[in-house]
C-alpha cells in the first residue's frame, strides 16, 4: 500500500460532467484538488447524444456558467450546430441547444483540466472510499494507491455496477467499451448508503454515408450563433488569442469547431413507418425490457422505441432526429430510437426508418443499468448524511443528463471547498435557480426514475430565465471565489447599463407617454422607440424589453415567491430532535428524521408530511425561538 505524498483538499472521483465541474470549481476556489478518472481520454465524454442544452437543460448550463463553471464555454468552443429553441414562445422558455463535436468536447475539457491551476488529474480506478468514524479522508485505487484528502466528491455516473444490455446479451460496463466500477458500490453500501437501480438507454449510431437525407427535413443552426456563455468576450478575445491572425472568420470564436469548419452542420428530421411498428411487435419477445430482464427503472420522458410503439399504439409514426456526432466522423446519432432489442433485430429495424432503408449501424443501441444512491440521503449541500466530508454529484444521485450532472458537480465542488475552509454550504433556492430546484427535488423528494429537468418543475419559471442567469447567480459565484473578477465586473457593467436605460425610458416623455409606456405595448420593440440609446447590445435590449413587457406577470410571480419565502426562511436546527414533538405521527416523524429538512418550506415538500405536521413543527420551533435562515 502506497500513500500518495500530496494531501488534497478535495478529491473528485470521476471525470464526467459532474466531476469536471466539481474539480474545476474547487481548484478555481483555491483548493488543492485531485481529479481521478478511469481513463483520462474520456474526460467529459458524452456517452449519449453529444448535445448540450435544450429546454430547462439550457437554463442549467447558463446557470453553471454564471457561477463560473466550464460547460457553457466548452460547448461554445466545440459545438457544430447551435439553436435557440422555443423562440415563438415567451422569454422564460427560450432555451439554447447545441450539437457538439463529441471528441472536441472531451479533449478541450481535458485540456482545460490539465491546465487548471491547483488541479491534478490522475488516471486510476477508485475501488474504495476511506473513512474513519463517519468521516471520509480519501480513496484507494485498484493499484493499491491511497490518496488522502479533506473532502471526497464521488461522481461515477452510470459506472457503478454498470450492466449493459443488447437484447439478451449482457455485459458489465459503464459505457460501451468501458469497464464498470464494480467494487465502489460495496464501499458506499458499507458506510451505510442505500443503493437503488436505474436504467437508461442509447440509440444506435449510423454511418452517414448509408443514409438518404433527401427525404428528410433539414434543420440548420441559427445565425447569429446563440452561444451559451454569459462571457462571450472571452470566446473571442481570451482563448487562443494567436488564432485571430486568420481574419476571415471572425464571426466564430477563434479555435472553435465552427471556426474550423467555417459554418454550422445541420441536423435532419425523419420518422418511423408502419413497418417499424409491425417489426417491433413481431420481435417484442426479444426485448429484455419486455421479458422482464431489466430490473432498473427507465425514464418516462425518454422511452425506448418499443415502449413508444406499445404504449401509443395508434400513433402511425414517431419522429427521429439524425444528428452528427462530430465534424471528423461519419457517425450519426439516431435521436428518438433508443432500444434494447438484439443487434440482429436492430439491423433491420433502423432500415424501417424513412430515408434509412440502406442504413448501416456503426454501434448498436443498448440499455444500461446502474446503481444509484437514493438522493434523500444527502443534505442540500450534496454531502451525505451518513458520512461527513463525502459529497455525491451527478448520475449517481439518480439524475440523467450532462447538464443536471454539471449543475450538481459545480455545487458539490463549491461546497466541498467551503467545507475545507469551514464555511457554510451554499444552497440555491427554488426561486433562485434551476440548480436549486434540481437539488431540492432530489434531496427532498428523491427519485425513482432518472431525473431530468423540465421547466414545469420550477414554480417560478418566469423569474428563472436563461437570459437572467447572471443576474441571479454571478454575484454569488464571485462571492464564493469562483467567478473571476473580470466577469463579475462585466456583469456589473451590463446591469448598470440596463438599469440606467430603464431609468431613462421611465423618465423620458414622448407626447403624453413615457418611452417605457410605449415599449410596454405588445407590438412595439425597442428599436421602434422615438429615441434609442445607440450601441446597446442585443442582450441588453432584450433584457429591457422583457423587464418592461412582462412586468405584470413578473410582479405576480414575485408575489408568489414572497409567500414561498415565508416558510423557506424558517430554519430548522440541524440537530432538531423530532422525537421531542409528542403527538406527531410516527410516519411523518420518520420521514422528517430521515430527510432532516433545512427549513419549514422544505419540510412541507416531503411526500407524506402533511400540512398539519408542518404546522406542528412550526409551533414547536416558534416556542423555542425560531431562527431565520441567513441569506447565504
Amino acid at each position: 500500500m502506497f500513500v500518495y505524498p500530496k494531501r488534497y483538499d478535495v478529491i473528485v472521483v470521476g471525470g464526467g460532467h459532474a466531476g469536471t465541474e466539481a474539480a474545476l470549481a474547487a481548484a478555481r476556489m483555491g483548493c488543492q484538488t485531485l481529479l481521478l478518472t478511469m481513463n483520462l481520454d474520456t474526460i467529459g465524454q458524452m456517452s449519449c447524444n453529444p448535445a448540450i442544452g435544450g429546454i430547462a437543460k439550457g437554463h442549467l448550463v447558463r446557470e453553471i456558467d454564471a457561477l463560473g463553471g466550464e460547460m457553457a464555454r466548452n460547448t461554445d468552443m466545440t459545438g457544430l450546430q447551435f439553436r435557440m429553441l422555443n423562440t415563438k414562445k415567451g422569454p422564460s422558455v427560450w432555451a439554447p441547444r447545441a450539437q457538439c463535436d463529441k471528441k472536441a468536447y472531451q479533449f478541450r475539457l481535458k485540456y482545460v483540466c490539465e491546465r487548471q491551476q491547483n488541479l491534478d488529474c490522475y488516471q486510476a480506478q477508485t475501488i474504495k472510499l476511506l473513512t474513519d468514524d463517519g468521516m471520509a479522508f480519501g480513496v484507494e485505487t485498484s493499484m493499491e494507491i491511497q490518496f488522502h484528502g479533506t473532502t471526497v466528491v464521488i461522481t461515477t455516473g452510470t459506472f457503478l455496477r454498470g450492466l449493459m444490455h443488447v437484447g439478451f446479451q449482457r455485459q458489465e460496463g459503464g459505457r460501451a467499451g468501458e469497464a464498470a466500477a464494480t467494487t465502489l458500490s460495496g464501499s458506499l453500501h458499507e458506510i451505510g448508503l442505500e443503493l437503488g437501480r436505474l436504467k437508461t438507454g442509447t440509440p444506435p449510431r449510423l454511418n452517414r454515408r448509408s443514409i438518404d437525407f433527401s427525404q428528410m427535413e433539414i434543420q440548420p443552426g441559427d445565425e447569429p450563433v446563440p452561444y451559451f456563455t454569459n462571457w462571450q468576450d472571452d470566446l473571442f478575445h481570451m482563448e487562443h488569442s494567436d488564432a485571430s491572425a486568420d481574419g476571415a472568420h471572425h464571426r466564430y470564436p477563434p479555435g472553435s469547431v465552427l471556426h474550423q469548419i467555417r459554418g454550422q452542420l445541420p441536423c435532419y428530421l425523419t420518422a418511423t413507418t408502419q413497418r417499424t411498428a409491425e417489426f417491433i411487435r413481431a420481435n417484442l419477445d426479444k426485448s429484455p425490457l419486455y421479458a422482464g430482464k431489466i430490473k432498473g427503472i427507465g425514464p418516462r420522458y425518454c422511452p425506448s422505441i418499443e415502449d413508444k410503439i406499445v404504449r401509443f399504439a395508434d400513433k402511425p409514426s414517431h419522429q427521429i432526429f439524425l444528428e452528427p456526432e462530430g465534424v471528423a466522423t461519419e457517425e450519426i446519432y439516431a435521436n428518438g430510437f433508443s432500444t434494447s432489442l438484439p443487434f440482429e433485430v436492430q439491423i433491420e429495424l433502423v432500415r424501417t426508418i424513412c430515408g434509412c432503408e440502406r442504413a448501416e449501424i456503426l454501434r448498436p443501441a443498448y440499455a444500461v443499468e446502474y446503481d444509484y444512491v437514493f438522493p434523500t440521503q444527502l443534505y442540500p449541500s450534496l454531502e451525505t448524511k451518513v458520512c461527513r466530508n463525502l459529497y455525491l454529484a451527478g448520475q449517481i444521485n439518480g439524475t440523467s443528463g450532462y447538464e443536471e450532472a454539471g449543475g450538481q458537480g459545480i455545487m458539490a465542488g463549491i461546497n466541498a471547498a467551503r467545507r475545507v475552509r469551514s464555511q457554510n454550504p451554499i444552497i440555491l433556492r427554488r426561486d433562485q435557480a434551476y440548480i436549486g430546484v434540481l437539488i431540492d427535488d432530489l434531496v427532498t423528494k428523491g427519485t425513482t426514475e432518472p431525473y431530468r429537468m423540465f421547466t414545469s418543475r420550477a414554480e417560478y419559471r418566469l423569474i428563472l430565465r436563461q437570459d437572467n442567469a447572471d443576474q441571479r447567480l454571478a454575484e454569488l459565484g464571485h462571492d464564493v471565489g469562483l467567478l473571476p473578477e473580470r466577469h463579475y465586473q462585466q456583469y456589473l457593467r451590463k446591469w448598470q447599463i440596463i438599469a440606467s436605460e430603464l431609468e431613462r425610458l421611465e423618465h423620458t416623455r414622448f407626447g403624453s407617454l413615457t418611452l417605457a409606456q410605449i415599449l410596454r405595448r405588445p407590438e412595439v420593440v425597442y428599436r421602434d422607440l422615438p429615441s434609442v440609446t445607440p450601441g446597446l447590445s442585443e442582450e441588453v435590449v432584450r433584457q429591457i424589453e422583457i423587464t418592461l413587457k412582462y412586468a405584470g406577470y413578473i410582479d405576480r410571480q414575485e408575489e408568489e415567491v414572497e409567500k414561498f419565502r415565508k416558510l423557506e426562511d424558517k430554519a430548522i436546527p440541524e440537530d432538531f430532535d423530532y422525537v421531542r414533538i409528542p403527538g406527531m405521527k410516527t410516519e411523518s416523524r420518520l420521514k422528517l428524521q430521515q430527510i432532516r429538512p433545512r427549513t419549514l418550506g422544505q419540510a412541507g415538500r416531503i411526500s407524506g408530511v402533511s400540512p398539519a405536521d408542518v404546522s406542528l413543527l412550526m409551533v414547536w420551533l416558534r416556542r423555542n425561538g425560531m431562527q431565520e435562515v441567513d441569506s447565504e
Partner: protein
Amino acid sequence: MFNDTIAAISTPLGEGGLAVVRLSGREAFAVGDRCFRPAGKSSQPLASAPTHTIQFGRIVHGGRMVDEVLVAVMRAPRTFTREDVAEISCHGGLLPAKLVLDAVLASGARLAEPGEFTKRAFLNGRIDLAQAEAVADIIHSQTELALAAANEQLAGKLSQRIHRLRDELMHTLAHVEAHLDFPEEDIAPDTREALEARLERSLAFMDELLATAAEGQILRRGVRVAIVGRPNVGKSSLLNQLLGRDRAITSPIPGTTRDTIEETANIRGLPVVLVDTAGLREAGDAIEAEGIRRSREALARAELVLHVLDASEPLMAADEAFLREFAATRRLLVLNKADRPRRLALPAELAAGAVAVSCLSGAGLEALKDALKERIWSGEIRAEMLQVMINSRHQDALRRARVATETARDALRQNVSLDLVAVDLRIAVNAVGEVVGRTATENLLDSIFGQFCLGK
C-alpha cells in the same frame, strides 16, 4: 407576538341554545366595539369594560341588528390565549353565530385557522409542555379534519365536482406545459382554441359551484319576507306563530305595532327574515309617520310579501289598496282568522294561491310554511350545501381560481405566449388545490407523461 386579531365560532355548529364567537388578539376589543352596541345602563363598550365582566348589547352589521348578545370581556394575560379575548354569546344555531361572525370579520378580524386559538395559547406560554401532546392532537385533528371535510365528509356531489374541476384545470395545464417543455416532439397538445374551450368549460363549472355558493348566501343571510295588510288583520300574530314565540306585541287596537320588527325564523330549514310592518295607513302622529316610513323601506327590500287578509270580514277598500299595490310583487295571500265564519270573497285567480290559517289555533300554519318555502326556494335544501358554504375559505379559493382562469383565458385570446398563460393557470390549479389539499407541481409531470408520447 401576533399582530392580527382572529375570530371563529367556538361552539359546535348546529342547533343549540347558545353559540359563542371568540375574538382574540391585541385589537380584540377595538374590533368588537366596531359591531357591538352596548344596551342597558350597566353595559359599556368593550374597550372600557373591566376585565372578566359581561356586557349586554347588540351586534350590528351594515346598519342592521344581527342579534342580541352577551359579551365576556377578558383582558390579557389571564385568558385562554394570553391575549385580549372577547367571547360573544349569541343565540344558538348556525345562523345567528354565522351572522355575528360575519359582523366581526367585517369589523377587522381575520378568520382563525383551524386550531389557531390553541396554537396561540401554546405559543404565548399559556399551555405548558405537559399539555403539548394535546396541542398536537388538536392541530392534527383540526387540520386533518379540514382536509377530511373537503375530501370525505363532503363526499357528495360537491366534492366530486371540485375534484373534477381540478383535474380539468390540471389537464389543461399539462397541455400548456407540453407545448413549453417539448416543442420538438411530434406530440399534438391542444390548440389555443381547444385550450380556450377547455377553460371556458372550467369557468362555467366554477360559476356553477359559485352559484351554489350564492344559494348558500341565501341560506346564511336569510330571505326577507315582509308581512303586510291593513291594520288588525293579525300580522303580528302571524309573525309570532311563525317564530314560535311572542316577539311582537299583539293587541286588538289598530296601530299597536309602531315600528318595523325583524326576526329570523327557521322555516323548513330556510332562514327567513320576517319583517312585520307598521300599519301602512295615513299617519296620525309623528311617531306613526316614522313607523310608516320605515315600513315602506323594509318593503322595498323584501323578496316576498305575505299579504294578510281577515277571512272573517268582507274585502275592504284598504285590502283592495294592498292587493293593487303588490299586484306585481312576489306575494302570498294569507287568509287569517279561518277559525271564524268566512265572509271574505276573493276573485278566483287570487283565491287559488291563498292559504287559510288561524293564528289563534295554529291551523293551516304548516301548509303556510310549505307554501312559503315553495315560493322562496325551488330546489332541495341539503345539509351538504350548508357545510360547504359556511367554509368561506373554499369560496375564497374558488373565486381566486376563477379570476386566474379568466386571466389565462383572456391571455389565450390575446395570443399571449403560453409560458405567461401558465402563470395564471398554475395559480388557478393551486387555488382549487387548496380546497382538496394539493399543489400544482405534484402531479403535473404525471399528467404530462400520461397524455403524450414523449421521447426525442
